[in-house]
């Protein structure tokens, strides 16, 4: 029996080993390497190897207004985009959760934006929002509304990107919430209806509590994705106008690949990692997942 257990344990380890090796090499080691680089100065063009400078990068970041601006923009984007996607996604999922003719086709069509790469999404919405040739401003003028500087104005550029992001990722929320809605027992609704519950009460007291955990998980996933946004911003505004949409990932990209300051970029990455981890921890603790 002991031999059997030992044999099973070894087999288990053997089967898990490739995945563990992969995880270690491609996930764990790069994190530690990035932490190491964050304590070095390494301009890829000027030096062949990093040189240790201790906490200098972190001290410099504390006074780097551009970094804090990008962090502020990223957090604002995260909160607004996630809120819009979760609320809209939940609403659409509830609407789509009914047995009517053609609903499966509608569900399929609705998921298409999720399948498009972010670069293409950015290009599509860049054209839609374009001041001169964009159809959106044209339609606004047709109904007598003045054209809006969607991507040209620092006030509206970020919200324009949020619209594009919500268009692409709300279907993801819809998909998960729809799946969660299938697990809610029909008898609960029937019993509540027999007791005279209205549609709003059904939603508030049955649907919402039943899918709360899924909403939480979806919000965390979308939040983490929103924190890392890059492609759409790069295509639509390039971080402009001025630095109105320069999200953290864009600043890291510029620092690492345009100015080749790998040490400093690594320090930024570590700080961002701490920020998103803290966010997630607070979120989970507050809502008690």
């Amino acid at each position, binding site marked *: 029996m002991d031999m059997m257990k030992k044999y099973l344990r070894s087999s288990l380890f053997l089967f898990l080993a490739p995945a563990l090796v992969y995880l270690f090499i491609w996930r764990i080691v790069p994190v530690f390497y990035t932490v190491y680089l964050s304590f070095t100065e390494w301009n*890829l*063009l000027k030096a062949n190897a990093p040189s240790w400078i201790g906490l200098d990068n972190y001290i410099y970041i504390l006074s780097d*207004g*551009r970094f804090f601006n990008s962090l502020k923009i990223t957090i604002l984007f995260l909160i607004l985009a996630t809120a819009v996607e979760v609320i809209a996604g939940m609403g659409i999922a509830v609407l789509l959760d009914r047995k009517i003719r053609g609903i499966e086709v509608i569900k399929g069509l609705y998921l298409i934006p999720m399948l498009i790469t972010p670069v293409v999404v950015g290009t599509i919405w860049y054209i839609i929002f*374009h*001041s*001169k040739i964009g159809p959106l401003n044209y339609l606004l003028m047709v109904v007598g509304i003045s*054209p809006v*500087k969607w*991507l*040209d*104005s*620092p006030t509206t550029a970020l919200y324009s990107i949020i619209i594009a992001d919500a268009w692409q990722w709300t279907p993801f929320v819809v998909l998960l919430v729809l799946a969660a809605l299938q697990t809610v027992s029909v008898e609960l609704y029937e019993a509540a209806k027999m007791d005279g519950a209205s549609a709003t009460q059904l939603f508030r007291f049955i649907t919402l509590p039943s899918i709360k955990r899924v909403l939480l998980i979806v919000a965390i996933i979308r939040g983490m994705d929103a924190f890392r946004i890059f492609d759409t911003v790069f295509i639509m*505004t*390039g*971080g*402009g*106008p*001025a*630095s*109105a949409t320069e999200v953290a990932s864009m600043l890291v990209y*510029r620092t690492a*690949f*345009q*100015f*080749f300051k790998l040490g400093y970029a690594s320090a930024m990455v570590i700080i961002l990692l701490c920020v998103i981890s803290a966010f997630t921890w607070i979120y989970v603790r507050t809502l008690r997942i």
Partner: protein
Amino acid sequence: MKRTTIIITSLVLIVFCLYLVKSAISAEQRFEGVKLNIACVQWATFTKSLEYAKQLGKEMGMEVTVNWYPWDALREKLLLDNKVKSQAWDLVYVDYKWVGEFAKFGVVEPLDKYMKDPKIVDKSLINPSDWLPSSAPPTTYKGRLIAMPTGSSFITLAYRSDIFSHPEEKKNFKAKYGYELKAPQTYQEFLDIATFFTRKKGESLMGAPLDEDFYGASHSNKAGDFLWHDYICYMVSSGADIIWEPKTMKPTWNSPTNIAVGKLYAEVAKTCPPGHNVMSSGESTSWFANGKVAMILEWADRIIGVCENPASSKIIGKFEYGLNPSWKGMEKVRPHATMDGTSPLGIWSHSKNKLAAYKLLEKLVSKDTQRRLILDPGYAYPSMLKSLFNEPEVRKRYRYADLIRQILETKVYVFLHPLDPIYPEALNIASLSVSEVLTGQKKVEESYNEVQKKLEELFKKAGYIK
């Protein structure tokens, strides 16, 4: 004996002739089978010229492949490829803002090694004395030419000559500003004229009501290089440093002169079309080509390619070229300050085919190729060869040829981008500063003072100042 002498002499002559023929064939056939790779930006100026390069390469027995990249991605790619000593390339585009970096990090090989070697250079093909004086300096680093100019395009003024010559407009302008309406000689006049011609739908232009808004000027103010190319002309003409004082390396971004430039530039921006602060040069030029703008400062090749093209222009025959304005008070010191864009190609320092790459460049810049190229209807980029601009066919093709002569005769101030490797990063910071002002996020003094501190920190960290 006589017979023997004749036979020997004949044999020697035959061998000599064969040697000459072989040398002539070898000069071309030694490149037989060579594969040349070019990394370049996909601009209209290059799509045609590198087609010619492929053809020239084929005639020399080479197979030439062009790999296109977006402009900003190309710099990063080449610097990283250079770091790993990649042999992927033979010829690469060298933007004049990258010259300092590329020279310092050995990305491209100086060309004088080939041009000064009598065994290599073919003087019938390459004649630097025929180049415009402004062609070589942008890609000359510490006295060595590191990339070959393959064309020439100045930043130029273009203005609506039909509007400027309209009697009613001339009368109204003089009444308002007290001087004659003509191509602006100073940036202050440029602002006056741009303000005068910025009109709303329904207002009159040339005696007829406008059916949409009309703008006095257009600038491509997308933060980064687009904005920079427009702003720098104002800055240099005023006498301000390009970001830092070259002798002391101290940033001077918030100098009183540059602050004055920023204020005037922001005023001109109010006369530009909507969306100017995210516009590229192409978009800005198309506003002018569509007849919605009175004046533009833009690269000549874009104006020629878009505004003189019937497929894309509504103003053919309605506009003229002019010298860039000067800054009031600096007319004698920095007259009509402008830049020459020379579409440079350099030899990749890790190339396996450097000689073949150089010989291809020689053919590309030869007078014969340049003539064929600039007379090609699909090409809009003027040549850097002075003598070509006197040829009747070229003058007919390029109305701009007269401006070239004016540039040469007037001895306009042609400036260079700084060649220091810190320039790209400093430029990025400075252009964001201007963009903040144009988008109304900050006032000029506030933005420029803040950025001055950032630049000082950058320069201190880089060891340029203490």
